[in-house]
């Protein structure tokens, strides 16, 4: 019994080491796919918003919604409170829509998609064939299936396992398709968690989102497989603005994975996404992200500016949500996956690993808004800074007067590798009733020299030793990830820290 479990867990770590050894370069997804693209004209205007809406063949109400957001956004100011600094973004010097020419006529199935595009995903290790694989790692027992929605720049190429999912009543498609095919659901829920007025980047997204994924799990259904979306930015000078909407109806369950990569480019690229999750009575959603956008080079040239608004609304009693994120990529990360614990006895969890190396800057964390009675939340954040990077945990725990007998526990640990980087913790704690208990703990320390020496005296080289110790530091979070992701994440932890020692 023990042995079996040991082998599996051990396999995860082993994978890390092997992957590290197998990699010679640093960022492994930095190549680009050479395909002909259709671009909307550069810049942002009402016409561009209309054009995106038209390209997606949207109904009038969706266009009106976008335009309202656009007119609001024009009057908004970019927020400056995060501990990140970057040259001013020229919002008129970007493309807001880029679609491979071959996608001009919508393929009926993935089989009809341009082989070049399919090859892109194959090279990334994302299976678009309906087989039991994800991220190039063989699933144990060969039983696990993962459905994938592949988003390439501004469009979704297609979604796997649609039929099998439909049998269970699960809707999994691109958001543009959902707007056309399931308008009643989209209309009811879009903007109900992250309103179009929420913040500068969410409002921008509301105006120009081009694609993304839509998930609906009907009452009482445990989604028969894990769902995932894989985002790839390929086109130059183009922002990606995807929007994801997940609705988990009463008593339903789904585990959702998200991955992202982009080519190496000298010019930064903008990514402003919105993810909304609605969870009804007794339902549960697990949302895992491995964010591996191009981080820029050692000198901070290029990379993705990642401004993301993610929020889950536990709208009814006993709803549960768990966010797990591994943030290793992007030049700038600005991201706070949050939980609104509205239903009584609802629960929110946030597990995060954020690694910033070289010139990367990450400002990330969560908000736990306790509104219902006996609501529970847990935050475990592990930040690692190396090189000249700045890494900030920013979070809010709010206990409303009505949220009696609730509970929060927060653990934020920071690890520093080298004396040129920074690690910061900015928690906000607001407690407005006395039957709730809130505990926040944070520590900052450097990577332990004794541990490194111990590993090295047993034969590991310095980078291997650092990878092992850092993976140990992150264990609590890695364990919260689905197995396949855990392996990829461990490997990423090691790769992201390459060159940080010595």
């Amino acid at each position, binding site marked *: 019994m023990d042995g079996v479990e040991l082998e599996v867990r051990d396999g995860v770590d082993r994978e890390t080491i092997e992957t590290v050894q197998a990699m010679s370069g640093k960022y492994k997804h930095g190549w680009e796919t050479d395909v002909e693209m259709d671009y909307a004209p550069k810049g942002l205007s009402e016409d561009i918003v209309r054009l995106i809406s038209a390209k997606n063949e949207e109904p009038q109400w969706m266009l009106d919604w976008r335009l309202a957001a656009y007119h609001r956004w024009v009057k908004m100011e970019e927020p400056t409170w995060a501990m990140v600094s970057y040259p001013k973004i020229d919002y008129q010097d970007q493309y807001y829509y880029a679609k491979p020419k071959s996608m001009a006529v919508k393929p009926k199935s993935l089989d009809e998609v341009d082989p070049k595009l399919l090859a892109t995903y194959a090279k990334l290790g994302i299976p678009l064939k309906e087989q039991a694989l994800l991220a190039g790692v063989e699933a144990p027992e060969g039983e696990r299936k993962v459905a994938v929605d592949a988003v390439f720049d501004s469009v979704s190429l297609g979604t796997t396992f649609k039929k099998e999912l439909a049998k269970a009543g699960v809707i999994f498609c691109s958001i543009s398709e959902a707007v056309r095919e399931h308008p009643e659901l989209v209309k009811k829920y879009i903007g109900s968690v992250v309103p179009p007025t929420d913040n500068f980047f969410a409002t921008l997204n509301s105006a120009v989102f081009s694609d993304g994924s839509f998930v609906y799990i009907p009452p009482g259904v445990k989604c028969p497989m894990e769902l995932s979306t894989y985002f790839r930015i390929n086109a130059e000078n183009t922002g990606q603005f995807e929007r994801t909407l997940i609705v988990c109806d009463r008593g339903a369950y789904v585990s959702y994975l998200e991955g992202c990569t982009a080519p190496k480019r000298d010019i930064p690229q903008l990514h402003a996404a919105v993810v909304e999750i609605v969870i009804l009575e007794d339902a549960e959603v697990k949302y895992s992200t491995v964010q591996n956008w191009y981080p820029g080079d050692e000198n901070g040239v290029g990379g993705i500016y990642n401004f993301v608004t993610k929020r889950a609304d536990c709208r009814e009693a006993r709803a549960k949500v768990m966010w797990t994120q591994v943030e290793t990529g992007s030049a700038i990360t600005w991201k706070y996956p949050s939980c609104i614990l509205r239903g009584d006895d609802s629960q929110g969890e946030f597990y995060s690993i954020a690694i910033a190396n070289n010139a990367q800057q990450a400002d990330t964390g969560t908000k736990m808004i306790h509104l219902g009675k006996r609501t529970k939340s847990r935050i475990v954040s592990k930040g690692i800074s190396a090189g000249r990077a700045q890494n900030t945990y920013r979070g809010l725990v709010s206990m409303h007067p009505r949220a*009696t007998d609730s509970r929060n526990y927060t653990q934020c640990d920071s690890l520093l590798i080298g004396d040129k*980087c*920074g690690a910061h913790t900015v928690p*906000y*704690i607001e*407690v407005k009733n006395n039957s709730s208990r809130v505990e926040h703990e*944070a*520590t900052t320390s*450097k990577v332990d020299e004794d541990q490194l020496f111990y590993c090295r005296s047993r034969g590991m080289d310095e980078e291997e030793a650092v990878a092992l110790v850092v993976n140990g530091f992150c264990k609590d979070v890695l364990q919260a990830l689905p197995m396949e992701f855990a392996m990829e994440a461990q490997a990423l932890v090691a790769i992201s820290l390459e060159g940080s020692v010595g």
Partner: protein
Amino acid sequence: MRAEAKTEALTARTAALTASGSGWLGAARRDAVARLAAMGLPTKRDEYWRYTDPASLTAATPEPAALFDAGDEAPAFDGIDAVKLVFVDGMFDPAQSDDPATAGIEITHLSQAEGVDIHWAREVYGVLEARGQIPVQRPLATLNTAYATQGFLIRATAKAAKPVSFIYHHKSTTSDALLHHCIKMEPGSELTILESGPAAARMTSVMEVEVADGARFHHIRAQGRDHARRAATHVFSRIGAGALFKSFTLTANGCLTRNEQIVELVGNDGVAHVAGAAVGDGTFHHDDTVFMTHEGLRCESRQVFKKVLMNGAVGVFQGKILVKPGAQKTDGYQISQSLLLDGDSQFLAKPELEIYADDVKCSHGSTSGAIDDTALFYLQSRGVPKRVAQSLLVLAFLAEAIGEIEDEAIAEDIRLRLEGWLQRHEH
């Protein structure tokens, strides 16, 4: 819009004040007036005032505050042998005070310092305050530097014979006090400063403390029990190599208190501890705002803040540990905790770490909750009446903060005052 509002508030607030004086002090005041004009006064929309509305502190005139009768409770630090310097509504009263000369250290009232060139004071007055404006502006402190005419300049060159005790009486319901003290601790010196009393209907104070290499400075403060008083206090300190700075504040009652501590550990091996115990019942808004900067090697800092709140009282803690690049081997600790004795009270906290050096050990913790029912039941099951048990648990909760007071007699004085308060506020 905001900038205009800030300037308007400033004009109204300073209409009746003049930055007077000649010589170095006049120059320092005029400099502060200029700095203040660029800042304006704070509003509740400033991030730095997120949890405390500064309106009543920046208003042109203070809200009237009824006088408080402490009954038979002895004044704070009454039993401590100290040089007593008494202020009434923010004005020094020599008649009620001891002769400053008996302290065996240099003590000069601000009004006498104007004409003479006290060379050390010009390097402290308004200087530490100005340094403390980065990265966060503290206009109320600058206002104080510009317009305060009351306060003492104190210089210690050796171990002082006894503590200096500032006693602030409150006699007028509309008094508005501006107090500014400067303290220079020369290398190897040691001094304890005590402060007690409500001071005025509204008090805005600044204490600037320069602790030179190897010097030791202790500060213990008991803010008065007047329910309607308001106060914005600032202690700016700069701590040299191997020097020690310790500050403890007891706050019982008062409708609005904002205590800011701005500490810079500039030398190697310095030690800075700031602590506070606050107890509030009803209309009580208490804000501890601490900014601890580590620049030297191997420095140690501790922030220990505990609040006991009931009947709608609000406790705020904003604390930061900033470790600058190169400040290796820093040991930084921060704890902020509140005990909410009923469902109406609130605790709002923003405990921050900002760290730019790797070989450091920094941690912070923050908790909020009710009295532990199991502990209460355990004590009751052993025959301790509920009220007594509650008091015991509250005092146990506050103990870590009081433990920061080195002098046992002073710590005992503080403990007795807390016990008294708890007895009066049993519920």
